[in-house]
């Protein structure tokens, strides 16, 4: 999957997650407010995993890079490349 497709799909996940919280239209670049706590983060990861059919392991979680679109795209790309 090319990077542009991954970016588009990440944006879809961000929007989908935002809509579950009634926060549609949130800035898809930095979304600190959207992921307010660890439980939110886990909910967001489930959506990402479903969208890309991947598993995000502890090593990626510990990078604390899930509140910025570009870093999310990088992580997803890295996992998909490994697969």
């Amino acid at each position, binding site marked *: 999957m090319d990077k542009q497709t991954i970016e588009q799909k990440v944006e879809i996940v961000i929007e989908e997650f935002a809509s579950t919280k009634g926060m549609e239209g949130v800035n898809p670049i930095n979304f600190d407010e959207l992921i307010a706590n660890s439980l939110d*983060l886990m909910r967001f990861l489930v959506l990402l995993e479903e969208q890309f059919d991947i598993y995000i392991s502890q090593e990626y979680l510990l990078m604390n890079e899930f509140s910025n679109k570009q870093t999310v795209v990088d992580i997803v790309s890295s996992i998909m490349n490994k697969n």
Partner: protein
Amino acid sequence: MDTYILKYELKKRYEGLYREIEKLIGFYYDNILSMELVDGMLNVTFTANEENQEQFKHDIGSEIDKFVKGYKEFDTDIMVESKQKKEVCSEVNDLNYIEVANGVRCKVGQRAVIEDNLSNFIIQLFENNMSSCRFIAPSMIDYKMLIKLGYFTKFPNLVNFIKNFKKDPTLIRKISKGELNIESPEIVDSYTDLSKKVLNPVTCYQVYPLANQLIQSTGKSNFTVTGNVYRFESYNMSSTRLNEFKIIEQVHFGTKEEVIQIRNKEIELFTNLFNEWELDFKIETSSDVFYGDEAALLISAQKYENGKFEISMNSDKGYMSVGSFNLHNQYFTERFHIYKENELLTSGCCGFGIERLIYCIFSQHGEDIKHWPEKLKKDLFLI
């Protein structure tokens, strides 16, 4: 009732996942006979009637589906290991620890003395080292308060409700004269109303609704809470899994840094104490057993933020949890608007289940206190 097997393919093959599913199923279903994992296939043996066995397979299958979807594998970090290691622990047959109803035990004679002295020792330890204020928690809590505390979303299966006879003088008179059958719980049910109170499942739950008032009136931010708690685990009762048991815990409020600092201090305090008592124990990262659609997510979130460190002790039943050190973040302070100088506080707690702690001491050092370490006997006034 017949025996059936559900075969479920575990696509995510993590060591921890199987253990968590085992806990999930063990906690919530009383008709599961066994569970085993063979080459990625989970075989769950259960009893059911022929007409509802397919439904049960479907229910439990979708329960596992939801759990697997949200599951994340985290390494278990061992924070502390005791100096002492026990190869063999003896079975506890304490005759002074008497079951009077399923999951309900009275403690008699020396067993009662040990429980009282151990409780007082831990209370003093908290008070002397953390400058805390003592708080005796009542056994009942307002039903709506338990909802506000979020207990029903996480552990609804454990709640013990209370019922009272209807306020009907004729009914009461008939019961008193023995004119109504009260032998069967189903019949009694029709004579009763549900109380607005339930039995308290967590001692520190009594503190959060009062926290602002307590912090202001006492000038303290640490509270040593004692009380009995009630958790209904239906079929799952034993000498170490009780319907009613005693908890001593400390609740603290402060900035996140302050609460983590207190937690570290408590870990050090109890590590030193249990080493002095020559106990075999460990403290490691852990999580609660949550219920519901988001159970796996709640477990993952708790592990991700190191929200729970569990202290377990060796016994004839293996390592058993006797307490935990918990960081709640702002879960409770947000619900009850607990602020200091306009800043929303963080809370944490550290608690011990007294019956289990005594069970492990008996199992490791034997039931004859003559053979217990001198420091332990001295601390518990048993010399």
